[in-house]
């Protein structure tokens, strides 16, 4: 056992235990750690945004003589400043131009990327051979896949009442959905337990030095 002499490690260990204390009940130690986290995170983000984004991508090229198409940076900067017009009620309408540009750009980006990756590629991936003598196991997987896609899509078809053959198909779609929810829940449990393991490893290794991971 070799307890850490690093002050930072002790602070991190104390804050970890403060947060864990919430599992017993809400208390001032937990509140302190929670508020500290929010404050430190906000400060960290501001510094990162300034030095990693605003300075190299806007301020530095705008202030450097000889930057190609320097006027573009001033236009970008002007639209950034317009966002702050929201703080003055009489001028808040000016911020809409920047917001409109942001929304338009994002919508355009999202539509093209989504159409290719989520529609074209995913539809193509479901067009698989249902039988191949060389690969019966693969064929079985393909049948499960295609039946799952069709029955799940049928479940989300609401223009006709789910009765008879349509109802039975939709019910099978529900089973597929339930399996996917179960898988998602299992993965979520795994993720949360991993976080607990990570903190335990930190306490046992970095702080107390009982076990080395």
């Amino acid at each position, binding site marked *: 056992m070799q307890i850490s002499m690093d002050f930072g490690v002790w602070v991190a260990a104390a804050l970890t235990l403060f947060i864990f204390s919430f599992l017993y009940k809400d208390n001032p130690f937990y509140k302190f750690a929670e508020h500290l986290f929010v404050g430190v995170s906000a400060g960290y983000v501001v510094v990162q945004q300034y030095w990693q984004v605003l300075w190299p991508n806007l301020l530095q090229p705008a202030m450097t003589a000889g930057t190609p198409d320097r006027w573009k940076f001033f236009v970008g900067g002007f639209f950034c400043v317009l966002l702050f017009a929201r703080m003055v009620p009489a001028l808040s309408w000016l911020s809409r131009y920047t917001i409109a540009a942001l929304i338009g750009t994002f919508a355009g980006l999202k539509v093209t990327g989504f159409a290719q990756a989520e529609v074209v590629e995913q539809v193509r991936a479901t067009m698989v051979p249902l039988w191949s003598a060389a690969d019966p196991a693969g064929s079985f997987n393909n049948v499960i896949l295609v039946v799952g896609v069709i029955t799940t899509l049928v479940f989300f078809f609401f223009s006709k009442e789910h009765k008879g053959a349509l109802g039975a198909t939709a019910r099978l779609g529900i089973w597929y959905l339930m399996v996917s929810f179960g898988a998602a829940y299992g993965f979520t449990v795994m993720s949360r337990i991993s976080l607990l393991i990570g903190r335990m490893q930190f306490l046992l290794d970095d702080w107390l030095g009982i076990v080395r*991971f």
Partner: protein
Amino acid sequence: MAFGTSLEKLDRRWIFLLVALLVLIPLLFPLKLPLAVSGPARHFYEAVEAVPAGSIVVLAGDFDPASGPELLPMTASVVRHLFRKNVRIIALELWEGGPPLVDAALHDIGDELGKKYGVDYVNLGYKSGREAVMPSFGNSFARTFPNDYSGTPVSALPLMAEADNFSKTALFVNISAGYPGTKEWVQQVQGRFAVRMLSGSTAVQAPEIYPYLQAGQVLGLLGGMAGAAEYEKSIGVPGPATKGMDAQSSAHMFIMFLILLGNAIYFSRRRERR
């Protein structure tokens, strides 16, 4: 059913305590349960293994300390695997909290294996704009990141002179904790720039990545701490993920037991009501 009634009234803090003990005890006294490498993790390993020495790989570390236990081990393993093969790395991060974590992995393992910053690896740091950054980065690395994480102009880094877009790279590895992450990289970059892509993701996000794996948009997948442990096993360097697997398994067994118990009580109550 008195047993069921008493369980229904059980203070949930007892369950928290049991989960904590089930995680703590295997960490202190490992059970050494066997670990098998799954198909998606094997494909991940094989895709990295197939990269020729001297190539350049882009590594996007889109996560922050909150998902460190799952994603730091796989980041470290990927960096070690690539460096061992003499593959060079250009790293970037689209989450504010990511740069110091990825930087530490690159420098620690780079120093250990004798790699030189600027020549063998570069960390471009963080850029805001989320998925808007991705196509811009695909068009030009240097225009999107004029400076690296420490503020050095990328024009001063020899590695950056060799690749300014994905056409000069052999592989793209995304370690992702959510938005923006693997989904967005697939949508904005993978198809548009014909990129060979791998994903390491948190377990929560992994089910959303499987359709991309099935479609071949992503060539390999590491899902959560289990995926990280499988990759550690593949490269022959057991790390914190491998050592956490016993705790993971014991906690999972307990949660499965609770689910079965809860269902048994529910169905017995329903029968009583009838």
